[in-house]
């Protein structure tokens, strides 16, 4: 009983923290709508494969609402997507992004770098990651390594200039971490920045979300 009461209160708090923006992309050519679900951690861009979503799509809202009660953020999205046919890409609010789909998290003068959920979704299952050595110099926009999926390799570019201080060696044995946890366990390198002013040229989460939508809409 107490658990049910807690769940009910949590549910109403979570419902109020969720808001939905709907984007219609090319109604004639593509009937899918994208929705952006904002939660406490960031954005989730949701595309319904099975039909139409509009802002009053209560079924979707209820699914997400129920999922957030039971699970932490990332797992809730997996739960929702297993119930309805959804493609969900996650965008984290506090990160910066490049137009080649890398993210960077800055802590002091240290930058942690990886590829975005959007990128890993398009690449497919990652089977190998080519990593640089610690001490390697990187420059903004320059390739420092590569990610290999089943049939393709793709360069990974550094969002900032500096020196590589740490490399995620977990990716040697578990390259699929990039798919399952692109923003956390799937980080690729850490860089000691040489020019923090470069961060101003990067996109925030809102701008990067729109960038991805514009890119998808062009094709």
């Amino acid at each position: 009983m107490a658990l049910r009461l807690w769940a009910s209160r949590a549910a109403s708090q979570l419902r109020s923290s969720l808001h939905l923006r709907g984007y219609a992309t090319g109604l004639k050519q593509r009937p899918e709508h994208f929705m952006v679900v904002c939660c406490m951690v960031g954005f989730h861009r949701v595309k319904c494969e099975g039909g139409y979503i509009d802002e009053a799509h209560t079924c979707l809202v209820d699914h997400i609402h129920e999922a957030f009660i039971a699970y932490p953020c990332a797992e809730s999205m997996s739960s929702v997507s297993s119930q309805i046919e959804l493609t969900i890409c996650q965008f984290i609010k506090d990160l910066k992004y490049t137009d080649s789909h890398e993210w960077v998290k800055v802590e002091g003068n240290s930058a942690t770098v990886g590829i975005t959920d959007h990128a890993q979704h398009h690449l497919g299952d990652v089977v190998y990651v080519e990593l640089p050595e610690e001490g390697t110099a990187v420059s903004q926009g320059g390739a420092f390594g590569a990610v290999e999926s089943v049939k393709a390799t793709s360069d990974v570019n550094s969002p900032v200039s500096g020196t590589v201080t740490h490399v995620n060696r977990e990716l040697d044995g578990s390259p699929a971490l990039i798919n399952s946890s692109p923003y956390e366990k799937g980080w690729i390198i850490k860089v000691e920045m040489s020019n923090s002013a470069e961060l101003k040229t990067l996109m925030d989460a809102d701008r990067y979300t729109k960038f991805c939508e514009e890119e998808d809409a062009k094709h």
Partner: protein
Amino acid sequence: MKLTAQCFRPPNLTRAVLQLTLTCLILMQRVLKAWELLEVKSVLRDKIPVVRRFSGGGTVIVDHGTVFVSFVCNKDSVPSLQPYPQPIMAWSSLLYDQVFHGAGDFKLRENDYVFGNRKFGGNAQSIIKNRWIHHTSFLWDYDEINMAYLKVPARAPKYRMERNHSEFICRVKDFLPRSAFIEGIIKAAGTHFSLRFVPWDAIELSAAANFMPSSRMLTRQELKAAIDAEPESLLSQSM
């Protein structure tokens, strides 16, 4: 492989490269354990060169019967094409449908070109910021004996259904004449691009270019180390 890689890195030009392979060699994907992919003892015994490839894709053995076709493109060379693996693969399948339409039950199946459920073409891609390459190795013909150098990979397409090499692959030459095959590819490429033919001997593989290919040949020491790394249980099975 070296020519294709060199065409890839310098910017701006869209190139299609059609190559006929003369020697037998293995192109291996970039993973850490060669013993998972190759019968390494046989490869060493018979001195088959092994090249770790720069592009994605699986491990293949190529010989005089293999035809490579590579498209080296700028990001915007094909209008409305997103430079990601699946859209590029889908685009290439439409191009090759023009070549093989009517020759057999041609389709793109997972990431392979097949007639029915037998593979005759494997694909690999490399994507950088403003360029992409898509190449296909076509089994115009092949020597059955050479397939014995390859193990059935742990990660195989579902439609393979654990078939061995001889039941899984087929020869293009059994489906259409060579002239139709080569001319068909050229004609199909011409529907997407303006073509200019460059003879092989006119292409300069400049050693002075500031280019370091990431494809490289594995040394005998590396292959011997792969044997040492192979678990004993598997070694005894292969003997």
